């Protein structure tokens, strides 16, 4: 066994997997990764099954050190500056940390959450079949809380397999698609129009339970109290102050505010990745389109491993290199050995 020691980590970082399902009738919310595609991609890169537990890293940075042996990991999700002992590393690739080496991650750019998957997964005691942290319910393993500096994750020793890269489809950047309802009849036409035609921002007070939206006030027709009913990931409820809240994987399983619309499953991860303060819009789609999209998304997840290949076989990806802040005259984009940038510079970018 090797271990990955957390030397430093920002808030909103925790162990997450596909979540625990089947106990919502007892008030237990599923939790699980905010961006399931990114979790699955990171896991595929190190040969794990797609929803194996990984480290969900919030908008701030982190530093993780391999101890008692080498650890093979892969990073996917929000782009950020990343380096191992001064060598820049790209997102959507696997990498092996030699014993004692530290992976340093900067702030998230163009997203909020990154996933660091570990070859062989994280040792822990599943609760309802999941290691996912749900701090309110005291669930999650090996720590039933967000990760902190000093935490240690037991992992398998690195296999020594060749490093891989995954070729993910480009992320759409259009409006976040929603299906109206279940309680859109609690709102008048003007309120629904306002909801669909306005620019929204995600408030900095958002968390894994809910994303608070900043924008116009959405007024109810008959007041804001309805009898509590069930919620899903992506339910958009409108409390008394008229500021919508999109429910996220640590949501309450029931809620007593009218739900004007629901984010479609295929767009949920993309929505979860929108950074606080960035503007976006919603667009209503019919059930047929939403279900066609979720089936396409399921197919993408099912065939994700086919998108993994050797690093050398990939065409030069200028965008990724620029994103990693290493494209320049001093480096050869095709020779990873020349991707030398001082670690301090990486952090200064944040």
């Amino acid at each position, binding site marked *: 066994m090797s271990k990955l020691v957390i030397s430093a980590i920002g808030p909103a970082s925790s162990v997450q997997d596909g979540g625990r*399902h*089947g*106990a*919502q*009738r*007892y*008030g*237990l919310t599923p939790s699980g990764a905010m961006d399931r595609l990114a979790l699955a991609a990171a896991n595929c890169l190190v040969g794990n099954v797609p929803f194996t537990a990984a480290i969900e890293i919030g908008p701030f940075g982190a530093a993780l050190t391999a101890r008692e042996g080498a650890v093979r990991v892969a990073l996917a999700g929000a782009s950020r500056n990343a380096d191992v002992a001064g060598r820049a590393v790209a997102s959507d690739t696997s990498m092996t940390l030699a014993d004692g080496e530290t992976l340093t991650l900067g702030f998230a750019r163009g997203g909020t959450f990154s996933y660091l998957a570990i070859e062989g997964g994280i040792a822990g005691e599943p*609760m309802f079949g999941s290691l996912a942290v749900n701090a*309110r*319910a*005291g*669930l999650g393993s090996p720590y039933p809380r967000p990760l902190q500096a000093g935490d240690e994750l037991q992992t398998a020793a690195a296999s020594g397999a060749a490093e891989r890269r995954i070729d993910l489809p480009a992320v759409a950047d259009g409006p976040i698609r929603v*299906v*109206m*309802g*279940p*309680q859109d009849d609690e709102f008048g036409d003007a309120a629904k129009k306002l909801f669909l035609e306005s620019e929204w921002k995600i408030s900095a007070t958002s968390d894994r339970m809910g994303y608070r939206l900043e924008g116009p006030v959405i007024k109810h027709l008959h007041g804001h109290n*309805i*009898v*509590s*009913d*069930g*919620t*899903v990931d*992506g*339910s958009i409820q409108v409390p008394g102050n008229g500021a919508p809240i999109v429910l996220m994987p640590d949501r*309450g*399983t*029931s*809620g007593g505010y009218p*739900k004007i619309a*629901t*984010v*479609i*499953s*295929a767009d949920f991860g993309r929505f979860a990745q929108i950074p606080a303060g960035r503007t976006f819009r919603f667009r209503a789609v*019919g*059930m*047929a389109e*939403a*279900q066609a*999209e*979720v*089936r396409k998304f*399921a197919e993408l997840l099912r065939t994700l491993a086919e998108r993994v290949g050797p690093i050398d076989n990939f065409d030069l990806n200028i965008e990724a290199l620029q994103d990693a802040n290493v494209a320049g005259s001093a480096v050869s984009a095709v020779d990873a050995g020349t991707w030398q940038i001082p670690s301090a510079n990486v952090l200064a970018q944040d």
Partner: protein
Amino acid sequence: LSEKRRIRRVYQAMAATLSPPRILPSGDSAITVEFSRNIDDAANQRVLALDRTLAREPVSGVTETVPTYRSLLVHYDPVKIDFDTLSEKLVSFAQLPVPRETKTRRWRIPVVYGGEHGIDLEDVAKTLKTTPDDIVARHVAGDYRVAMIGFTPGWSYLSGLEDSLHMPRRQNPRLLTPAGTISIGGVQTGVQCLAGPSGWHLLGRTAVRTYQLHRDPTFLLEPGDHVTFSAVDAKTFAEQDRAAEGGEIVAELIPS
């Protein structure tokens, strides 16, 4: 709009003895089957009956059901079954006559009322112009049913609170109320398992854990279970709390 028309056609095709529920999409992977907009005992019976029907006759693709006061949330895998097909099935199941509950469990849950354990008991008595003892007597006399479990693990919402105990919720919800709190709010009473925020009036506490991680069963109460309360003193509560911490159920199952 065409979806709504399709659903309406489904309704018309049913020779309904019971009024059809409203089929409301909760995104692309869940359907809310709504029987009423209000807290309504008959509607809750139909929610629980549909939940039992789906447990007895599983529909391929349905992954999880969540009963609430007035609706059943049905989670499904849209790769296995589509919205229209599942909606039709749910409408037809929901209009089956509500079967009599065959095996109903009845629990007796011990509660220490008032004082530090139920800090709102005195105020509730004052508001309702009676004594704390009378409030306790009325609360203990009730025969309740678990209408739903939700919000946080094990938080059990009970229907059947007698009219004289109905009270609006507090103006200012408390950010933290203790584990095991027994409270009233609106037309409901409840058993709260974990410490957390609440806007209800706190009458007392129970040592019973409706959710306990390493115990079998992890979740004690099921939607549809009947519940009565019994008053115990603080010393008994302390003993029961130790026993419950060690994994004992503490609540009594009353033979019916």
